């Protein structure tokens, strides 16, 4: 069948989901390759994510090339965790034996991380802002 002019835009459109999926998977594959090459202890997906950000910054990839699929994946992240969570049924023995320490440590440290992280961030920002203010005052 002859590809009519009408169909061209679809085949070569970067809005095409196949193209978007191809781009994301290529970044993931690049991440896998780097892990294989260097043997670093960082997951390929994190490397792929940083490569994607760098390529967007460099303008090699435009946001619209990955936007549709990215939005879908990012907004449904929670769902992809369900099978890993079902893995709980394999450790029910250990968990029921040490339920209190596991729950208390997880909940307690989550609260601590949020408080420490947020407070330190706000504190450093305030200090930097004050220092900049002092500097601009002395310059005057």
């Amino acid at each position, binding site marked *: 069948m002859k590809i009519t002019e009408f169909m061209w835009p679809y085949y070569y459109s970067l809005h095409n989901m196949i193209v978007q999926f191809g781009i*994301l*998977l290529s*970044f*993931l594959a690049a*991440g896998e390759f780097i892990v294989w090459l260097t043997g670093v*202890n*960082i*997951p390929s*997906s*994190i490397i*792929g*994510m940083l*490569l*994607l*950000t760098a390529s*967007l910054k460099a303008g090699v990839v435009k*946001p619209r090339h*990955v936007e549709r699929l990215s*939005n879908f*994946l*990012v*907004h449904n*992240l*929670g*769902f*992809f*965790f*369900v*099978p*890993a*969570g*079902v*893995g*709980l*049924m*394999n*450790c029910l023995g250990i*968990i029921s034996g*040490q339920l209190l*320490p*596991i729950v*208390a*440590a*997880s*909940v*307690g*440290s*989550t609260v601590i*991380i*949020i*408080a*420490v*992280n*947020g*407070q*330190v*961030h*706000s504190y*450093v920002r305030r200090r*930097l802002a004050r220092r900049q203010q002092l500097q601009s005052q002395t310059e005057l």
Partner: protein
Amino acid sequence: MEFLTDKFFLIAVTFVFYIGAQILQRRTGVTLLNPILISIAAIICFLMLLDIDYDTYQEGGAYIDFWLKPAVVALGLPLYRQLPTIRKQLLPLLVSELCGCVAGIVSVVVIAQLLGASHEVIMSLAPKAVTTPIAMEVSSAVGGIPSLTAAVVVCTGIFGGMAGFRIIRLSRIKSPIAQGLSMGTAAHAVGTSAAMERSERYGAFSSLGLTLNGLLTALLAPFILHLIGAY
């Protein structure tokens, strides 16, 4: 009964339970009825009732697991959109992430030790704040049980996603940047999806928190655990 172990059937079951849990939460409006939590619980009950083991379920579940990695790569887009802000506050970001990472690992070890958890459980809990692939790597590197780590990571994420913004309000963290960042640091991708529901800006800083804490934990966790004498 052969049909019950068919992987497409099990994938469909996962979707149906998740959609059902979403509808349940939307109808009732109760935060505690988190769709991830409810569907995990429902699927476990379902599998136990029908006497299907996890490995059989995972033949189908692996196809859903598969999307986790591309989804983490996709977080590069919101991250890119916040690059100008990130560059402006590089120092506060790095310092707070470092403190968050250390505080997280130390606190989880101390609490678990005080309450008498066994050594391998403590090691499984240590990397629980970061995303599953990193956490499982770290866990097996320091002598934990990777599958326990995966389960705890998901539960921590669900807890962080549900209670995170309440904890943020209680600890009086005002700036939206710090709020988003804390969500990702404490509750990885599940926290990020909760932050994403507020706005893309929260989500982007949350994914930054997830990334930085993931990197720091992968690099520092064995060292920190060694330093506090747990490993």
